[in-house]
């Protein structure tokens, strides 16, 4: 039995069919010790069944190690939403509000949607290093899709940025490492963080302002949005 109602399946299928380019979901799972793997596979199977514009490539995290290392996948379940680029990935089972995030990630990739505007251009040209953005989310968090999509669109705009959406409940150790007890929580390079969601342009502006701080050596952690204040 499908997870989506017939009416929803049709709607989503039409959304996918309208995408200018196709999207591949590259899924890493393993049989043992992975609670979310089966569910994630079912969800992605169902989505891939709705349109030939969405392809699903299944990899075994334990045996396809070369691919996994090339993709820098650290946990399972994980999947890469691969359209024009490979820079957006999701760790965990995309359910609840995360499912709506997933749909947006796919349609964005299929339409080549990226963050845009002068603030984003400024970031892209100032970027002197690679950045990893992690966004912690939960299935019941209504602000989370916005935070996740903003990170993904920044990644789509800049080859140096990778966005990782992390289902916080499914990876308690990781959540604990970043002291996540509130979502959405966005963490950049383990040194910058903020709670809540901001538009992509604001995110880009703050990141540009924070680049010098990231280049300084040290383990100090700061609120990214504090770089928006004029005195920062």
């Amino acid at each position, binding site marked *: 039995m499908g997870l989506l109602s017939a009416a929803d399946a049709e709607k989503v299928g039409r959304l996918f069919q309208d995408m200018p380019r196709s999207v591949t979901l590259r899924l890493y799972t393993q049989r043992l010790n992975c609670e979310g793997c089966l569910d994630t596979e079912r969800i992605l199977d169902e989505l891939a069944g709705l349109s030939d514009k969405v392809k699903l490539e299944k990899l075994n995290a334990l045996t396809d190690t070369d691919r996994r290392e090339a993709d820098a996948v650290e946990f399972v379940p994980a999947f890469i939403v691969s359209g024009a680029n490979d820079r957006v990935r999701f760790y965990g089972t995309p359910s609840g509000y995360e499912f709506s995030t997933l749909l947006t990630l796919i349609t964005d990739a299929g339409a080549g949607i990226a963050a*845009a505007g002068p603030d984003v251009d400024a970031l892209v040209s100032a970027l002197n290093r690679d950045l990893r953005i992690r966004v912690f989310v939960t299935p019941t*968090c209504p602000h989370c899709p*916005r935070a996740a999509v903003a990170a993904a669109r920044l990644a789509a705009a800049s080859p140096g940025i990778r966005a990782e959406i992390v289902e916080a409940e499914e990876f308690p150790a990781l959540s604990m490492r970043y002291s996540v*007890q*509130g*979502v*959405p929580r966005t963490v950049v390079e383990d040194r910058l963080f903020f709670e809540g969601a901001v538009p992509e342009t604001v995110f880009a502006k703050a990141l540009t302002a924070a680049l010098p701080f990231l280049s300084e050596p040290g383990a100090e952690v700061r609120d990214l949005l504090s770089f928006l204040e004029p005195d920062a």
Partner: protein
Amino acid sequence: LKAGLIPPASSSGERSFDVVTAGGGPAGLSAALYLSRYGMRHAVLEGWQPGGQAALTDRIENYPGTGPTTGEALIGVMRSQALSAGTVFLSERVSAASAVDGGGLLIEADGGPVHARALIIATGAAPARLGVPGEEKFYGRGVSYCATCDAPFFRGRHVMVVGGGDSAVKEALHLTSFASRVTLVHRRDALRAEPALADRLLASPSVDVLWNTRLLEIRGTSGVESALLDTPGGQSEIQVDGVFVYVGRKPATEPFAGLVRLNGDGTVWTRDIVLTSHDCVFAAGDVTSNPLRQVVTAAADGARAASAAWHRLGLGG
């Protein structure tokens, strides 16, 4: 670029409109729908929280005319009604607004200045802070203003909810599905919440309520560990793993403080529901002191503000 996201440039290359609405919650969206139907050139500066508070609410049962629904779905329909009627949405925050000599308004937003003949303030409200020690420090690490978002981190744990109104009670009920124990701390001796909710809360076996009690301090090291309370029996410290705060809302009126008169509580002063102290500025929804703060009242205020702006600009006969 998606339709409706492109700021139209006026002949002089500036962003200029008949009416600008600040805020993209139910009040702003309803204003936009009406302004579009009035045929006015207008834009919504929706700030950083498109959809407003309502979009973040899991379940809305009391909006007349839709069955029980989610905030996201209800707001989604409102937004697409406005979009398809021709509204321009800008995901920008207003930082200041002022009257221009010789007429018109200058609105400062993230993307630069915007000019308008009239302004509708519909910036709603954000959760009020308690202002106690530890609250700021542990925000995101045990202190939360959104149970719907953060409840899963407190599975099997003991959480405290501060407040006694609809929101506090709704969210405390939501937390009972996750936490092993929910302690509601309320400074009065009765709940202000509607009985349909209050009765359900008081009947819940995993909830206890501390009446006539105030939270004084949130304590811990890397996360929340305990709460210091002022109870009728004196001060006491109880162990909790999280604190959810629902003690009202703070109107988002700072950018407009120099433009229109505010009430003592920070809400925009209004008469005839939507008129402010400035002729060409209108206010709608939770940002006003209009009685009852709900989706339906915000939507009605928005429609009224749009109608008033239309008449004010002389386009309504």
